[in-house]
């Protein structure tokens, strides 16, 4: 909300600089978005009189002006506008002036003609969002005067962000009240006397069916008004407050709303038929709002109706046909209290916002309803004539005015804030409208009618905190609470130590990407209001996100990437959903770049498998990798990962076609492991180091090409005898010298005994047994 400083001064005699007032507002809990300086922003723009206007020799749309700004010689100005004539007075930005739009005026040539300044529109002066042509100033504007001063532009305007609890500060007087209370100054009352009704003026018939949502409704007719523009002082304040003048009646009501917080509405009384009733809308009812929207209403929406139908959505917006126009001669004024929750629910369902609804949903001051009606009447009659009728009051005339009572304990407030509250600060709260009486520890509080946010003692603790200031509260470390030490999940950390770069992807992906790896959509969790179709479903796999990140990096000249992500995947399950913490890897491209000591190498399955094995082993676990067809992965290069008996994840090469969908044209390898599926690893246990050396032996066999290495090792382990301490594949060769369909595998095994040094006999025995077992099991032949 924007409030001109001058407007605040109507209510409180502030003298400090605007910056200092802004600081006070912040301290009181009103966030400042900025302090605008409209007058300073147009410093150097002066009133100019157009002495002559002639065509530009080279451009049809430009004119050459001679403009008198009160100096010895008139200025030559090239101007692109067309709405001015000789004798008009216009704002002239002189050389060196910086305008609010950032433009700095320089002497220059426009299409060959010298221009020594610029004639300005409202937009260029920052007075309006749009304008047609130059701002033509009144005839009495003194030539050469600063335009900012002549137009009485505000010196400073505060841009405040009022928190939703402080409906009472959604108006100038409310903010002034806080400032006055804080500074120890008095708050001026609203000026003016009630306006007496004139005889012979019609009196609206008002009924309230929905008394719960509309406890108080005031109506009044004013006949014989002549609608004209609002005077400049109202218009300029509205503009400074960020509103656009509409017509005199509407402008006066907006002014009253900004000034005292009561939204009002004026109907063209001649468009209404019969009496007015405030009731719940019927499902399917509709009306045409002032903003041109056709609004479909639902049961429960609060509407103001006449006999023909809806004339306003209560507290949100009036109807278009019943609105006041320049042709209106009789009006019906409305001032009411609508229940905040009702206004909030309706306007949110309809996604409508208005200045009125913002105030009603935060709660207006019920004590201000009747006063606003009187003030509006007086201003309208003074400015636009007309004869006011009697005010019709429907509902509870004293609704909400008594204010509520609250009992607090000073000690409880002090212990909540951690600071003592001297009785002297009570005065500040009293100036803010509270009634306070201390009685020992007891504090009897009368809550003013405009403070809907104060309902419990804790709310009052906030008022005291604001007044005392948070700076006065000491900083004390609370006593330590000993909790069970956290066992933090360091899954991603060990992957990073192995050389992978951790990424963080969005939890929502495109449904099409999801389908690449999970064909069935039944467990997809879809968003009702996604930002885009690319972020429409919750991910059930981390792989699509990793592929997108890989593409992003490969497109930026990375020769290869090794990525790891830890995050949740989301699935619909019987009666709800699951969120599963998962770690996933992606490896593609060069493992290392060409270097003086070696050539680059393209990553393959075993690079990633090694990484996953290392990651498992860091947790004290060993995985088994069993060939398996996995959706989205290339057949023959994919496996499930088992730890113990349970499947914990998958690994493999992404199908080339899918990789291509992600614009990746090289082999990509991915793996994922569900963290909760992992058993907790064995804690490392001490084993004495061997005292006697081990002996190693190599055996090379010719196998069938499709042999499974893991099975060979199992066979070796079983047949090697109790001394066997290790067995692994150390060589693999298929090519020249090896028949088609065969593969040569070298097996290295080791024997060790804890009690003696082994002999040739020991290794011969083991060797013989292994050869026999392997040849038998795999129909393999020993080569060496």
């Amino acid at each position, binding site marked *: 909300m924007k409030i001109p400083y001058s407007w605040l001064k109507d209510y409180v005699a502030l003298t400090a600089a605007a910056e200092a007032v802004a600081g006070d507002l*912040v*301290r*009181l*809990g009103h966030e400042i978005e900025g302090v605008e300086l409209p007058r300073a922003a147009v410093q150097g723009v002066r009133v100019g009189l157009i002495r002559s206007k002639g065509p530009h020799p080279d451009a049809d749309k430009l004119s050459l002006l001679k403009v008198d700004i009160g100096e010895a010689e008139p200025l030559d100005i090239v101007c692109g506008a067309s709405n001015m004539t000789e004798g008009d007075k216009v704002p002239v930005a002189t050389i060196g002036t910086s305008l609010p739009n950032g433009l700095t005026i320089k002497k220059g040539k426009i299409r060959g003609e010298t221009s020594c300044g610029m004639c300005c529109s409202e937009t260029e002066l920052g007075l309006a969002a749009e304008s047609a042509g130059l701002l033509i100033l009144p005839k009495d504007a003194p030539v050469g005067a600063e335009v900012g001063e002549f137009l009485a532009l505000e010196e400073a305007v505060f841009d405040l962000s009022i928190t939703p609890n402080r409906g009472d500060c959604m108006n100038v007087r409310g903010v002034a009240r806080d400032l006055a209370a804080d500074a120890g100054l008095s708050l001026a009352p609203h000026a003016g006397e009630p306006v007496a009704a004139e005889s012979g003026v019609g009196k609206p018939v008002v009924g309230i069916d929905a008394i719960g949502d509309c406890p108080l409704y005031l109506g009044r007719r004013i006949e014989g008004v002549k609608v004209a523009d609002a005077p400049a002082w109202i218009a300029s304040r509205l503009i400074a407050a960020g509103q656009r003048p509409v017509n005199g009646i509407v402008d006066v009501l907006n002014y009253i709303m900004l000034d005292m917080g009561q939204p009002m509405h004026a109907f063209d009384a001649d468009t209404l038929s019969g009496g007015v009733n405030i009731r719940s809308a019927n499902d399917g009812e509709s009306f045409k709002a002032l903003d041109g929207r056709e609004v479909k209403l639902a049961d429960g929406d609060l509407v103001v109706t006449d006999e023909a139908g809806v004339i306003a959505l209560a507290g949100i917006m009036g109807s278009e046909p019943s609105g006041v126009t320049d042709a209106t001669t009789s009006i019906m004024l409305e001032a009411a209290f609508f229940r905040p929750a009702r206004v*909030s629910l309706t306007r949110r369902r309809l996604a409508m916002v208005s200045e009125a609804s913002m105030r009603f*949903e935060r709660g207006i001051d019920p004590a201000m309803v009747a006063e606003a009606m009187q003030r509006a009447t007086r201003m309208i009659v003074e400015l636009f004539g007309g004869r006011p009728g009697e005010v019709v009051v429907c509902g509870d005339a004293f609704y909400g005015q008594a204010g509520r009572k609250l009992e607090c304990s000073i000690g409880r407030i002090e*212990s909540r*804030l*951690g*600071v003592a509250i001297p009785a002297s600060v009570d005065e500040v709260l009293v100036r803010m409208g509270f009634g306070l009486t201390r009685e020992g520890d007891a504090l009897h509080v009368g809550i003013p009618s405009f403070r809907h946010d104060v309902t*419990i003692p*804790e709310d009052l*603790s*906030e008022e005291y*905190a604001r007044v005392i200031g*948070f*700076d006065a*509260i*000491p*900083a004390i*470390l*609370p006593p330590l*609470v000993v*909790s*069970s030490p*956290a066992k*933090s999940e360091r899954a*991603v950390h060990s*992957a*990073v*130590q192995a*050389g*992978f*770069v*951790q*990424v*963080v*992807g969005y*939890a*929502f992906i495109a449904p099409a990407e999801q389908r690449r790896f999970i064909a069935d959509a039944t467990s997809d*969790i*879809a*968003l*009702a*209001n*996604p*930002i885009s179709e690319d972020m429409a479903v919750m991910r059930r796999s981390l792989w699509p996100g990793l592929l997108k990140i890989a593409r*992003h*990096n490969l497109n930026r000249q990375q020769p290869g*990437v090794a*990525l*790891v992500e830890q*995050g949740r995947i989301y699935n*619909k399950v019987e*009666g*709800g*959903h699951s969120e599963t913490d998962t770690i996933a890897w992606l490896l593609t491209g060069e493992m*290392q770049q060409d*270097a003086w*000591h070696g050539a680059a190498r393209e990553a393959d399955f075993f690079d990633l498998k090694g990484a996953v094995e290392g990651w498992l082993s860091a947790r004290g676990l060993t995985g088994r990798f069993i060939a398996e067809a996995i959706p989205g992965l290339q057949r023959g290069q994919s496996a499930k990962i088992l730890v113990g008996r349970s499947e914990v994840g998958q690994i493999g090469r992404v199908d080339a076609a899918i990789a291509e969908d992600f614009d990746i044209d090289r082999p990509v390898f991915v793996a994922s492991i569900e963290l909760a599926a992992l058993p907790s690893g064995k804690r490392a246990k001490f084993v004495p180091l061997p005292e006697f050396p081990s002996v190693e032996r190599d055996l090379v066999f010719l196998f069938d090409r499709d042999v499974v290495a893991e099975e060979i090792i199992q066979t070796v382990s079983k047949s090697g005898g109790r001394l066997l301490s290790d067995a692994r594949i150390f060589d693999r060769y298929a090519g020249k010298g090896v028949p088609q369909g065969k593969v040569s595998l070298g097996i290295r095994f080791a024997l060790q005994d804890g009690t003696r040094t082994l002999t040739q006999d020991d290794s011969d025995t083991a060797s013989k047994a292994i050869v026999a077992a392997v040849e038998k099991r795999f129909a393999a032949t020993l080569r060496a």
Partner: protein
Amino acid sequence: MSDIDAMIAQLESIRQQAQQDFAAAADSEVLTALKVKYLGKKGELTGVLKGVGGLSVEDRPRIGQVVNTIKAELEQVIEARAAELGAQADAARIHAERIDVSLPGRVMPRGALHPVQQGLDEMTAIFDRMGFMIAEGPEIETEFHNFDALNIPPEHPARAMHDTFFLRDTENGEPMLLRTHTSPVQIRAMQRFVGDGHEPPLAVVAPGRVYRCDSDVTHSPMFHQVEVFKVDRDVSMAHLKGVLQYFLSAYFEQEVPIRLRPHYFPFTEPSAEVDIGCVFCAGKGCRICKGSGWIEVLGSGMIHPNVLKSVNIDTSIYSGFAFGLGVERLVMLKHGIPDLRLFFENDVRFLRRMGA
């Protein structure tokens, strides 16, 4: 010439020849061969001794003495020569094995923790030290946990300020949403704590992802928060300030001034926004703090009694403070990262640099 003189002359000539040969030996193998040739069991010196039988009994020891002397001398010469040759060979090898130490080293694969992860790690570690328990909660939440239990009823204006992602399907008839803040973990942690029959104190730090239906230069639809709260007897705003002061100084690794401004959150009363003295200009005013010298970092307050009541904690005995901080924002401030979007673009050049 007597026999003995002839033998001595022969020995002398062997000695001279041997010395020449040793000096001329090009490497240690030649030298070893020469050693065998002259001093070996069947070497030349020994060969001369074979003629000892023809000498008189009194001459024999003399010849023995001469041979021993020559032998000792030659052995010394060999040793010296061997050392010389060894030194030469070492020098040659070292010369041959010289390298260009300015060539780049072999690259060991280097990973990087995402800066958000680093932030989460650092922040939770600080609270862990202060005795806070780490808790997590679901990201897909009910309206009750995300709003109602936090004193944000359906018609509350604050509810509209959370740009909430809703799920298309309900669960057990209830609308579901992506949590807009980590505050629902407050509710869940307290529910479980109370449900398990415990009484406060309870101090929790809850890191996690949160979602807002908002995406532009300064907003990401997904980001991270850390929720911190403590419930105990006599918890006050002063404790809140103490914890904030400790945490912010520990995180920024310098003594940072803090400022609390009154604000409004439905789930705290009183509520305060917390500013830190600008870490870029030390409070003098710069572009980043918009000249104010202060930077807003988080929202905080004393837990609203309605929140405690919603989880059956007796507000006549217990009170608590809570705050929630935006992880990305603090990480950006700590490391001078200018743009929120960098976190989710996942450019490995950025990640490697920040992961250093």
